[in-house]
């Protein structure tokens, strides 16, 4: 091959690179491993992740749900996972139709009119929602619930740093476990109220009331959902009056995978369709009138609008959105309701049992879905460490991880994958370890 292009040595291929920056030696990367060696290497690394192998009550933005076998089997088809962004619609109809179904499902679940082809994840989706609220309202103040996932808030802070948007925190009702906003502070400068429901502490927010507060001041209501299974049971954000809804879609059959890749759901009202960030797929027809799908409304996007684009995002989370689509269609209307019902029932059972342990309390009175805060009679971090060591259970998240002023609180999440025997074992472990 080299000679066919008139060259004698591979080095000549790189003759346009100045000699003083051309590497003389091989990179300090170890020699190639065979398949067997590689698998052994990764298996031994995986074995050090002892937390992956034990019963767990961790939630807080990433949830353990059952994923039907066909979800992973279908996303491993070469046609899906080795395809590119569907720029050439004639040879990408599989991807495009799947995204159109995804957009429809997101609209149905969130109760909104328009959804995009997905964002990187829930946290970046939320940051983009804040920026979009500023574009729509031309206002710069955004009031954020203090019960928002702390990592989502950090991401939003980074994104708005140079956008001239000011994030202000609302209040928190320590009795109910709900966010509240001083209505006097929601004014003509306010672009949006941002609220997560169920909130970070597991409590279902009064979203309809918050929508009224926002709308009275001409502001938008942005609703964020980290546990998307809750959408199958709780009143949809759209029905509550939300203007932008973002959600983390990992709950829809996507593995925990140490935090990613996940998929962000992003939906809004029809009137804001042209302000939405990211990809959109729409219906189109060929000359013979056959229905197909194309990427559309691209004039919002960076490859055309450059610095005036609605976002710098140029892909979505295609394969993960596909996994979510397959999950939602396989579980279907009744399956999603049953999963949501089991989550709520099992969490209620766990909450009741933990609340009965002497010295433990459940500080918040608001209704919850599948997560709740339990207050222990001793620091939660040490308690959870002991339960992991002595009982081989990850009992939840010590809230001191994010909030040093909550040393004794733990956030417990229960899903359909937690058997009653695991819940009982957690309760027994907490009782035994409490003092």
């Amino acid at each position, binding site marked *: 091959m080299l000679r066919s292009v008139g060259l004698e040595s591979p080095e000549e291929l*790189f003759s346009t690179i100045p000699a003083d920056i051309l*590497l003389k030696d091989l990179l300090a*990367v170890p*020699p*190639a*491993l065979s*398949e067997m060696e*590689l*698998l052994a290497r*990764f298996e031994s690394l995986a074995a*050090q*992740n002892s937390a*992956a192998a034990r019963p767990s009550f961790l939630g807080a*933005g*990433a949830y*353990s749900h059952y994923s*039907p076998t*066909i979800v992973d089997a279908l996303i491993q088809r070469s046609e899906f996972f080795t*395809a590119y962004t569907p720029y050439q619609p*004639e040879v*990408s109809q599989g*991807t495009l*139709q799947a995204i*159109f179904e995804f*957009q429809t499902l997101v609209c149905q679940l969130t*109760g909104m009119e*328009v959804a995009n082809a997905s964002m990187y994840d829930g946290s*970046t989706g939320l940051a983009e929602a804040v920026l979009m609220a500023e574009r729509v309202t031309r206002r710069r103040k955004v009031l954020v619930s203090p019960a928002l996932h702390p*990592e989502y808030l*950090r991401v939003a802070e*980074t994104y708005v740093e*140079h956008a001239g948007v000011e994030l202000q925190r609302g209040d928190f009702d320590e009795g109910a476990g709900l966010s509240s906003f001083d209505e006097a502070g929601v004014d003509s400068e306010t672009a949006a109220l941002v609220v997560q429901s169920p909130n970070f502490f597991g409590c279902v927010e009064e979203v309809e009331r918050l929508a009224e507060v926002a709308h009275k001041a001409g502001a938008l209501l942005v609703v964020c959902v980290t546990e998307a299974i809750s959408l199958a049971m709780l*009143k949809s954000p759209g029905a509550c009056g939300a203007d932008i809804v973002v959600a983390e879609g990992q709950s829809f059959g996507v593995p*925990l995978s*140490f*935090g*990613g*890749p996940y998929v962000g759901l992003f939906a809004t009202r029809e009137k804001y*369709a042209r302000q939405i960030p990211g990809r959109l797929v*729409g219906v*189109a027809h060929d000359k013979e009138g056959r229905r197909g799908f194309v990427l559309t*409304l691209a004039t919002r*996007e960076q490859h055309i*609008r450059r610095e005036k684009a609605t*976002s*710098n*995002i*140029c*892909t*979505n*989370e295609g*394969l*993960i959105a596909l996994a979510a689509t397959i999950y939602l269609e396989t579980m*279907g*209307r009744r*399956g999603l309701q*049953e999963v949501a019902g089991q989550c709520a029932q099992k969490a209620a059972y766990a909450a009741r049992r933990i609340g009965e342990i002497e010295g433990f309390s459940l500080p918040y009175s608001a*209704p919850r879905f599948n997560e709740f805060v339990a207050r222990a009679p001793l620091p939660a971090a040490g308690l959870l460490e002991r339960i992991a060591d002595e009982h081989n259970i990850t009992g939840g998240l010590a809230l001191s*991880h994010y909030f040093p002023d909550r040393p004794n609180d733990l956030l417990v999440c229960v899903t*359909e994958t937690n058997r009653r025997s695991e819940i009982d074992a957690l309760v027994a472990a907490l009782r035994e370890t409490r003092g």
Partner: protein
Amino acid sequence: MNQPKASTHITQNESLIFERSQTGRTGYRLPALDVDEAPLDQLVPARLRREDDLAGVPEVSEVDVVRHFTRISTWNYHIDLGMYPLGSCTMKYNSRLNERVARIPGFANLHPLAPERDAQGALQVIYELQQHLAEITGLAGISLQPAAGAHGEMTGVMIIRAFLDARDGATEEKRRHVMLIPDSAHGTNPASAHLSGFTVKTVRSTPEGQTDLDALRELCASNDVAGLMLTNPNTVGLFEKNIREICRIVHDAGGLVYMDGANMNALVGWARPGDMGVDVIHLNLHKTFSTPHGGGGPGSGPCCCTRELEPYLPVPRVVRDDDGFALDYGEPRSIGRVKAFFGNFGMHLRALSYILTHGADGLREATEAAVLNARVIARELTGEYDRPFNDPPMHEVVFTDKRQGRKGVNTLDIAKRLIDYGFHPMTIYFPLIVQGAMLIEPTESVGRQEIQQFVEAMRAISREAEETPELVRNAPHTTRIGRLDEAAAARKPVLRWQPEGKATAA
């Protein structure tokens, strides 16, 4: 010339899943609830619950779902089927072994908030990948948090902003505002610069396809230049020969150099951005390091920078200490978080697997093969297609439709006709500075035979453009649908399915 499509076959007419839904059909089974069931009203009052009974969400069986997705999947072109020569996208083979690695239960079932001491294997994966990427780029500071190229780019530009503010002061009069971007750049560059609060000024290219040094010097004469965002090799496939000088000019003007790493597949094992004078770069693990594109994500866009800029990287950083691997949240100069948790970890696993299965030798050879393949295409097609730049290309080569255009056949037509020959089209109409651009990147994943088949297809299309231009203008002829009316779709967008009679446009 409109040949009939294979449109009567059942697999070519799969409807939307919503149109297949049948009330009462299910495709799942859960274990029976094993705790005492409480009345729902006791858990969540009715006023907070859905009233629509999830109407519209599909009700289908398992086999319905499997057939549905299997059928529509066959409407996609994909790497496993053949050459996918999208310039700037690096569509290389995605190893099944890497997929297997990512699915090992000890990784796939690991919660991101698991205690650090019980997730040491995952932290080591991140740490080791950081080390390898530092070696490959010659840049010591690495964050794997960004989820995609554009995301890594935004991170890099925000780091420049934070560094300059710390150095010069963040007051309005002290702040530098201008980000220089060549006219050949990806659209994400100006979008990311804007998101980070910069004003964009364009640097023009020379007729030879290189950054114009005089223009750069002129723009750098002001004291307002924060930096330059440069792709190297650039988007016309040429190595920026004056890269050292370019970096010097920008540095002398007090700015920093950001390199878009989209084209790193031309450099790995042969040259390192850090040695060129670049301050910060993003990589695309889904391009250079073979993590699958997945029909448009998930990607992963690590941000790599000099020691000087390292304190500004997103937190947490994965570090090594006496007890093993740990998350470090402590750096006060950090730009903050750009994503929840630690980035697209599943992609980190695949990229590490790619590096380890290639080794130092294999990484260097892959680059060599990628460049050689592009060189062969450049040589073989120069007789048929106009090639606007004479310098030998790196891993991708740009042509135009200038000659075919005389017969009324344009780049879009050529791209669509390539589908009939069994190839995915190349990148078209990019970069914007080349009129009617066709950007071809074969990657190292094609052998000599397939390169030759591609060359012959391109030559045949060039002949058809002369002899039967209508044939090319109406392509593709072999797909289940023809060219779609994208303008009409954007005028009256239909972005979701609605039950009969409820269809509205957005």
